[in-house]
């Protein structure tokens, strides 16, 4: 319990400290406007060429744009946690955290969530305004706000552990850039970051259904544009299982890495 309170406090302090630079954060999210503008043009042309305004793979044009607002929010709200962890391992700063009464991964998770929640709120606001102006609103129930907030935290947590796993490889390798590009971009592509996985060829849809990536991007984003309580329940228990599995692997990797840690000087 005390561990949970400490983690909550770290997240709260992170959120408060980032709040001081709110306008800087708002400015840095304006790029989302450019991204969405390009997406709106791409999908408008695509839908027009496909015969008009009907649904493609279960998404109307409007839902498609709001889906992309959701995927961009998930991805752009995340700080590059793999870099922070890699830097701490390379610089030896990881040793400073060893004697602190708070777990290494727990501390980073709290910072990740604290900043992520604030960034996500700004991104939803900026992306929402752009999408509203360009394609109009979608159906949205106020009752889905709380469940979606929980889904966001679970989604961010799964993405955190995924990034942390890549960062922890720095215990064994000189440079994690290659691993990052392979795993992170695979997550983007097969997780449905740039387009819903229902647009993939049938054979690929059969493959990705067995991968963790859709639980980290596609399913939460799809839930945000067409919320149903039964879908939320199903997604939640699957995400909980995924988070538990990733946490377990990350813990093992961390403990094994710390055992081979050599830190010189101070």
């Amino acid at each position, binding site marked *: 319990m005390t561990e949970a309170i400490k983690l909550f406090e770290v997240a709260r302090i992170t959120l408060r400290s980032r709040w001081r630079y709110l306008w*800087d954060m708002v400015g*840095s999210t304006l790029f989302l406007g450019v991204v969405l503008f390009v997406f709106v*043009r791409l999908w408008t042309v695509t839908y027009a060429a496909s015969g008009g305004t009907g649904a493609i793979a279960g998404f109307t044009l409007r839902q498609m744009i709001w889906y992309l607002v959701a995927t961009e929010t998930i991805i752009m709200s995340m700080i590059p946690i793999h870099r922070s962890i890699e830097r701490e391992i390379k610089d030896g700063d990881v040793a400073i955290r060893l004697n602190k009464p708070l777990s290494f991964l727990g501390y980073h998770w709290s910072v990740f969530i604290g900043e992520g929640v604030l960034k996500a709120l700004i991104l939803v606001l900026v992306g929402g305004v752009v999408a509203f102006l360009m394609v109009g609103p979608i159906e949205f129930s106020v009752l889905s706000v709380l469940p979606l907030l929980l889904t966001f935290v679970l989604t961010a947590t799964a993405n955190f552990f995924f990034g942390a796993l890549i960062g922890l490889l720095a215990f064994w390798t000189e440079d994690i850039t290659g691993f990052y590009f392979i795993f992170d*971009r695979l997550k983007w592509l097969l997780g449905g970051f740039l*387009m819903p996985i229902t647009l993939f060829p049938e054979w690929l849809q059969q493959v990705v259904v067995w991968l963790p990536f859709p639980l980290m991007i596609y399913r939460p984003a799809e839930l945000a544009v067409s919320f149903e309580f039964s879908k939320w329940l199903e997604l939640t228990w699957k995400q909980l299982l995924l988070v538990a599995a990733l946490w377990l692997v990350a813990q093992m990797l961390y403990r094994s890495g710390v055992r081979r840690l050599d830190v010189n000087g101070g």
Partner: protein
Amino acid sequence: MRYILAALRTNLLSAFEYRTSFLTQVFGMMINDSLWVSFWVLYFERFPVLNGWTRDDLLVLWAIITFSFGIAFGLFAQALRLSELITQGQLDYYLALPKNVLLQILLGQVRPSNLGDLFFGPILLAIFVPMTWAKWGLFLLGGTLGAVVYLAFFVMAGSLAFFLGSSEGIASGIGNALIHFSTYPTRIFDGWTRVLLFTLIPAGFIAEIPVDLVRSFEFRDLALLIVAAIGFSGLAVAVFNRGLARYESGNLMSLRS
């Protein structure tokens, strides 16, 4: 020219000293590019034609923009840091050197990850797109001229720091906008957006005209691209020099190895 080649050679050798890191970054970026291209392959699997463009056209587009980006920011990587160098008063070092200031800044660093882009473009074409020797020539020429436009734009964006003070956020914001626009077929845009893409955010000269040159050569396109490359680089040099005249030393007390 001899100076440029010698500086590039030294920078490349220096970066290659950290061999594992160098190779990891190069291959990492090539994988990154491959996965972006995979997105488009999946897209064209579902929608075979996009405003007259097919999958092969998109592959040519990605080959050209990665090649251009690789030349511009793999070999002349410091263009990406221009705003930061100006704001922090770090131009002092270059002012004391005997060659052209802007040239020396641009030649200050190579970036291995972007060299991955440089290699990716030709490899993509060689494997997936049927090419003739003439098309290879046009690819190299169009890609190089596109790189000049990329560089000129980033020099202008970075030079804003001479006039606005700390403007790294703005410089990277408009730089990212150019990169983002240039990774999509510009034919999906119309009206004023197209005007914008051939003036203020010149993605059309990077992503559209070079691709048209390779698809079906027209002398008019080539002439337009050459004029744009000369025009934008002339403008960039003028803006940089005008800004440099306003530059005040940072009195930075540090040694640069």
